[in-house]
């Protein structure tokens, strides 16, 4: 049985990138560049999403001269539902304590 854990900020960013154009297949390195997430963080996120059936993977069907086929990723149906739900929850969630502290005025009044 897998536990439903709250996605990290980086995972949410990755899910957000996928939901911008859910039908589009994405390359791992393009996601790294777009989101400024290093490969050492990006690939574990992609692996976990794929392990949970939220991400489908495929190899490039056409051969490109001079390089091997690249791996492609996009959300599954379950992945899209999960991403929409996770992003909506984050938007509904109360502001973080640090943000709330910033709203307190110098004299303590809100």
């Amino acid at each position, binding site marked *: 049985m897998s536990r439903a854990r709250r996605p990290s900020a980086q995972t949410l960013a990755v899910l957000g990138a996928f939901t911008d154009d859910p039908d589009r297949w994405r390359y791992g390195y393009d996601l790294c560049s777009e989101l400024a997430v290093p490969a050492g963080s990006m690939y574990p996120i992609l*692996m976990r999403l794929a392990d949970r059936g939220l991400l489908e993977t495929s190899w490039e069907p056409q051969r490109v001269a001079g*390089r091997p086929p690249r791996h492609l990723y996009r959300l599954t149906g379950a992945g899209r539902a999960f991403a929409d739900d996770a992003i909506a929850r984050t938007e509904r969630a109360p502001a973080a304590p640090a943000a709330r502290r910033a709203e307190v005025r110098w004299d303590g009044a809100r």
Partner: protein
Amino acid sequence: MMLIAAVLGLLAGGVAVARRRSTAAAPVSQTGRRERRDAPARIVAAAEQLLPAARREWGRAMAAELAAINGRDRWRFAAGVTGVALAPPGHRIRAAIVGAVTAGSTAFGMLTADRTVPQLEVFAATFGVLLTVALTGIALRRARPTAAGSVTAAAVAAGATSTIVTVVIVARAHPAATSDPSHLYAVVLAVVLAGYLVLATASAPAASGAVWWGLAGAAASGLAWAALLPSHATVEGLGLQLWPVGGIAALLASIAAARTHRQTKAGARAALTAAIVSAPLFFTLDLARVLTLHQYVLTAPYDIAHYPHSGFPDVASFVLSDTLGGGVVGVLVMYPLALLGVGTLGGIIGAAGRRPHPGPPPQHEQPSHSPDAQ
């Protein structure tokens, strides 16, 4: 000297064969020439090999991605891939538990060594730190071990324990025999025993058959040594009889493994398994023999001349120190290297004239389905 030259010769031959095969396996470009990989590509290729079998496709995916990256980003990407290979997702909590337990055991072992055998404190610290790092890394990377891997790990753990117990007995009975201001032997012993344990757990499921052959070879060595021991009433010459027995057992095991799997490397793997299981037993038998026979007599002219200036308080400490040093270098280091050379030879003999098993087709050539958009 002849023995060292033979070991080095066998190893050089094995390395030459491995290099030739590695070159043959390098990717071929469109023009039919072997591609030259740059450093990031080599790092990513090495990292791909570190990944557990279940994550190999991800390794290929990351290696393929590197081919589309230029400039300094290649180094950053390679560093990231290395991080993923060293700590892939899936087993981080298990690794944290293993690391905490081993680190706690190390601290306990160091405290115990400090109170009972202070001359072995450096060994306890080095062995504990290496074991903590190695076991944490294995827990991060490995899925459930195979039956062959579990049996090997248990046998090597038992052998390492018997080796350490024997050294502690010597240290308690003759403290001067284990006193080494440079701590060189303590560090070598720690590195070797930790290395054995890592090698024992590092076999891939596909190598299980070869590992079983190696275990059979180690068991045969052990039985032959047990049969030889009662006929030996002196400490002299026992090691010279144990070496060839172990070598023959490893050779036969490696030939059988290579014939079964039709691969040279199966022979080398069988011999390596036989070596890491039998070497601690060899070390323990040799030292236990000296301890039980109490024949602390100097016979070699060099020892007779060297002893008065050695600083040892008695002949027993001198003899035991000599046996310990010889055991660490000759039995725990040189013996496995020699058996690895013998195993490579046995692998070549066993695989000769046998075509390798056909491997699975490369998956990246057959996509699961065609992506419809970019």
